[in-house]
């Protein structure tokens, strides 16, 4: 399955509704780039949970090698101080894909995502900074250190679900979602993605809940 953006994939204003990758992102940064509009065709809203099923199955299958790669990345980072490049790319694509799928399920994203987790392929995109050296101590203790962040991520997930139900009802009636609802969703997605990025050694910066920064590509 290729993961390119088709020509038809343009926003209502004719602009390509995808965020370009940000190579200038500082190391260790985890950011959500929003390049999506707020329109949500009612049919895709009504069936959103079912439309996401192929992605959920694929994500489940992808999780198996991701979990197998994690100990290898951990061992590599422990020995050399950095996650090996191929593993960094693979785990980054996995976390990015999970973010795309979550955005779609939670109605934060408008369009059906691709299946490869490519940077810049989706309107709600996860931007990860380049890999960098990490402290061996925090690498060694990464699992236990991530526990509090995961507990908060569960709470954030519940809130995001409630917000998604609101977005679903609103989207079904109006054919679009309120910007504030989307912003809340993006905040939740960013925190969850940051938590996974931290666990998967893609960043050494601890997850934090701060409002998402607007990006230049954002469309009304």
């Amino acid at each position, binding site marked *: *399955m*290729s*993961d*390119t*953006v*088709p020509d*038809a*994939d*343009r926003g209502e204003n004719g602009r390509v*509704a*995808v965020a370009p990758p940000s190579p200038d992102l500082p190391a260790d940064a985890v950011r959500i780039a929003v390049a999506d509009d707020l329109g949500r*065709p009612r*049919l*895709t809203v*009504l*069936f959103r949970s*079912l*439309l996401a*099923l*192929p992605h959920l*199955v694929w994500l489940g299958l992808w999780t198996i090698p991701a979990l197998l790669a994690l100990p290898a990345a951990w061992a590599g980072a422990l020995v050399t101080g950095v996650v090996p490049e191929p593993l960094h790319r693979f785990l980054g694509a996995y976390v990015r894909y999970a973010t795309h799928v979550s955005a779609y399920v939670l109605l934060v994203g*408008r*369009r*059906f*995502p*691709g*299946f490869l987790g490519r940077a810049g*392929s*989706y*309107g709600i995109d996860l931007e990860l900074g380049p890999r960098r050296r990490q402290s061996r101590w925090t690498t060694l203790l990464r699992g236990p250190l991530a526990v509090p962040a995961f507990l908060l991520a569960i709470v954030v997930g519940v809130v995001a679900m409630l917000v998604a139900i609101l977005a679903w009802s609103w989207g079904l009636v109006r054919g679009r979602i309120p910007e504030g609802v989307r912003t809340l969703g993006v905040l939740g997605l960013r925190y969850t993605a940051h938590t996974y990025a931290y666990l998967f050694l893609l960043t050494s910066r601890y997850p934090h809940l701060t409002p998402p920064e607007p990006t230049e590509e954002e469309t009304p």
Partner: protein
Amino acid sequence: MKIVFGAVVVVALAAAGYLLYPTAVPGDLSLPAIDAEATFGGELVARAERYERFLYAIWVLAQVAVLTTLVLYARRGAAYARESSAGPVGTGMLVGMLGLGIVWLVRLPFSLALFWWARRHDQTELDYLTWLLEDWLLLAVEFLAVSFALVVVMGLARWLGERWWLPGAAVFVAVAALLTFASPYVELLPTEPLRDRELLAAARAYERELDIERVPILVEEVSVDTKQANAYAYGLGPSRRVVLWDTMLRPPFDPNERRVVLAHELAHHSQEHLPKGIAWFAIFAVPGAWILMRATRSRGGMGAPEAVPVALLVVVVYSLVTAPASNFLSRRMEAEADWKALEVTRDPEALEGLMIGFAETSLGDPDPPAWTQHLLGTHPALAERAAMARAWKARGAP
């Protein structure tokens, strides 16, 4: 070269059909005319006719609505491709799922009417919410199935171009075989082994007579949801099973009638009806895939997401057009299972009584209109099956 290849495929399919066609039912068997009212009772026949007439009317209306919807979707559905950021195959999946979703919405009022009618006639105990939830879950399975089918077909079409149809059909036949084999291991409803010792002893005797290995007999608990009675054979080789609904083990069915049901289902295994069903599926799937390839050519072929709405229409129309043939073949296999059941139970009265029981519990019309049998009848009509019991008796029991 193409003509020669096509001729080889046609001859191979025809030869396969010729080999699969014969059954154990004597070719010279003529069924006696049955007075349905005298056999099943005038009041029951009238009730069943009234019940089924509504079902037929709704079915026809639903088909018209679905076909109209799919024609419109074939024209305009490709526009939904812009709602995808995925590649061609992923976009095709989205367009396919949305097509199914629209069809589900269009069918919903008809499904609701059928459910209301079934409740009104005590054919189901389900409440509306549970029914809707089950229908939604079924749609989820359909979404996954269509996604898988499109991954296979579009993947092959993008790789092989227009030559995808033969390997594509082969993949679907392989999947059908795999599902037939694996389905007994996926328990959707709770089952437990049959505990009735007399019935089990009868099953073992029938297995010997039918010359098959021991087949596990299971009982499925459905009585909380329905009063209808049913039984089925499924699985392949080591996964072969026979399942009786627990409603079969209750009145109005007596032990002799239960034995006939058991013999009928075991006969499906002894006559290899499940592998034959897969082979028949292959015979239909190969030309179906070729027609699909030709019909989607103007939209860029099956590798393009724009072709998916047309493909949905073609599949539904092809299923409708071939329904009389596939139902005819299904009825032949069911008739063969009845015949073998008569041979091992030697109890035509029980088979006739069983048909009366089915009419009572499921409100099946004993003698439905011919067109409904052509389009919907996977089993011979109840009156026809009772006639077969009498024909067997008339030939002289051994």
